[in-house]
């Protein structure tokens, strides 16, 4: 049977992806250019018996999804720009308390109010280091509306698997752009549900490392009762300041990512087999870069595209290997140089790495990339 097709905005595709993944709770606050996500959730969640709540502010929205997630709900929020700055406080809480949730950040120009209706990719480093303290991070930057749908499903899977907040980074262009998408039927995409504890309630510890690096999270309202705090805690969930316990817990939280990189990292490669110039681009701008690759090839320049889909963790190993074959790496991004820092770090500059930055509210065009590549060769 033919798949159901629809012309959807990226923001809408993100919301429908969340519903496909089994999201049952959305707590939000209106902010451009992310608002369509909340609007779709307000229409669709009550139809399936789920809950939509518009909270009094961005922090309240983030708090509400963490409360809901502790009852077992797959919980979701959407924001942009200044809203993402406000979310940082409780993203840190979600990291330390290890509460699964998904946050979509439809990036807009900044800092501060910046350009509410202008596209940007300037929250890349915020996605990694936005909240204070050492913490793990997963951030996904899909490109097309179809991929926004499927990567949103994956974002929920990763959040539930690794017990942590997962960020989806869109931008004003692919958030608002409409494209044809094939809506997956139930079963087409994998949906991961939260692991439940199997021990007796009196033996349950919410951070029991004896259960592995990712201990099961029980739901409030079940027969398991436990304590959750934002303080550094021991395996039983109660605060501790014992150096050896604090250290072990902090390291375990980072190990959730480090030990599972191969399961989390994702990238796409285009015409890289013999590429001498490697473009590294993500999200909307990867589409400009892909087009630029074709133009450059027509002009006899062996160009290829490396497109990280997970920005964090960055697909480090593959990037490092590719750098060995390259004469140059070019990184176009709608900011003044963010992901390029990671690329310079992981490739140890075995070849020149050049950036194309743009922050005027307009996308980087294929022509701009082609010109830059020709300039540096």
């Amino acid at each position: 049977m033919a798949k159901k097709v629809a012309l959807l905005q990226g923001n809408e595709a993100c919301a429908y992806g969340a519903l496909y993944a089994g999201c049952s709770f959305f707590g939000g606050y209106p902010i451009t250019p992310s608002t369509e996500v909340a609007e779709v959730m307000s229409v669709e969640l009550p139809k399936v018996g789920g809950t939509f709540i518009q909270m009094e502010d961005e922090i309240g929205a983030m708090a509400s999804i963490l409360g809901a997630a502790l009852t077992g709900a797959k919980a979701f929020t959407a924001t942009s720009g200044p809203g993402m700055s406000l979310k940082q406080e409780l993203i840190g809480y979600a990291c330390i308390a290890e509460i699964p949730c998904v946050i979509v950040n439809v990036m807009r120009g900044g800092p501060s109010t910046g350009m509410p209706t202008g596209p940007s990719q300037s929250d890349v480093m915020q996605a990694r280091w936005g909240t204070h303290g050492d913490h793990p991070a997963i951030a996904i930057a899909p490109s097309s509306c179809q991929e926004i749908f499927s990567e949103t499903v994956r974002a929920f899977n990763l959040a539930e698997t690794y017990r942590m907040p997962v960020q989806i980074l869109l931008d004003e262009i692919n958030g608002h752009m409409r494209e044809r998408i094939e809506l997956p039927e139930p079963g087409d995409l994998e949906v991961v549900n939260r692991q439940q504890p199997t021990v007796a309630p009196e033996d349950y510890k919410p951070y029991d490392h004896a259960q592995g690096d990712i201990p099961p999270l029980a739901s409030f309202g079940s027969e398991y009762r436990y304590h959750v705090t934002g303080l550094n805690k021991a395996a039983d969930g109660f605060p501790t300041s014992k150096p050896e316990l604090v250290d072990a817990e902090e390291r375990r939280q980072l190990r959730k990512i480090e030990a599972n990189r191969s399961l989390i990292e994702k990238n796409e490669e285009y015409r890289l087999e013999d590429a001498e110039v490697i473009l590294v681009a993500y999200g909307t701008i990867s589409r400009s870069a892909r087009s630029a690759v074709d133009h450059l090839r027509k002009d006899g320049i062996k160009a290829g595209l490396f497109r990280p889909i997970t920005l964090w963790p960055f697909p480090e190993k593959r990037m490092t290997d590719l750098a060995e074959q390259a004469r140059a790496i070019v990184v176009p991004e709608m900011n003044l140089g963010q992901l390029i820092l990671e690329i310079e770090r992981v490739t140890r500059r075995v070849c020149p790495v050049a950036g194309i930055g743009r922050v005027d509210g307009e996308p980087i065009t294929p022509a701009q990339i082609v010109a830059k590549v020709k300039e540096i060769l």
Partner: protein
Amino acid sequence: MAFDYEQYLRPGKLPHIWCPGCGHGIVMKGLLRAIDRCGLQKNNTAIVSGTGCASRLPGYVDFNTLHTAHGRAVAFATGIKMARPEMDVLVVGGDGDGIAIGGNHFIHACRRNIDMTYVLMNNYIYGMTGGQFSPCTPTGDRTSTTPYGNPDPIFDVAKLAIGAGATFVARTTAFHATQIDKLITAGLRHKGMAVIEVLDDCPTTFGRRNKFRSVVEMMKRLKDIAVPVQTAGQMSPEQLQGKILTGILHQEHKPEYCDQYQQVIARAQTAAKS
């Protein structure tokens, strides 16, 4: 027979962090008596707090407990209640936590009239950080950040809650130990947002800077300023000067938020069918 507090306390989690003479322990005992009286089930009850001295309470008691970031307790609790309306949800915390940094969440939870019970321990001070003034510190008083006397006017927590739409608002003090559990019981039995303000004492960071020579003196003050709301009517404005009203200050019945959202679900599902 004496009340068995142990049944609700987590083994091995005491002693608590509260200073000798602090009223928070009196409030915690009142809270446990009220929970017992209302027959709340441990597995079905969530107690949520923000950050501060009073916010350490959930760690000591054997329920689903959530000690969140400073000021955010009510917003977390809203998520729990909306996701699982069948759970009994309580919020506990102090004045700085609930009324300053958490003020926006507080007034909006009142406005929604969501069914939860908020016990706010008002000791006029940020105790955990060493005694800075809060929105409830009386004008003129000394704190570590008002060394020349507090220039700020105060929030009246009860009036704020009533104005914002809470449908049950009560007040008592840490001195009136038996009234604490009576009012919390009434709040738990009330359907909607119930706010119980308990005026409390902080001998360590408030008392010693404001010429209270002992805990007894602070407690005596709480006793002296309290006027039951029933008797206040017979008193003159002069007699009421410097007093605070105690008891149930406000109760009304209005649609509760989770119920309202159930109607949204029903309307959405009807619309989807047609």
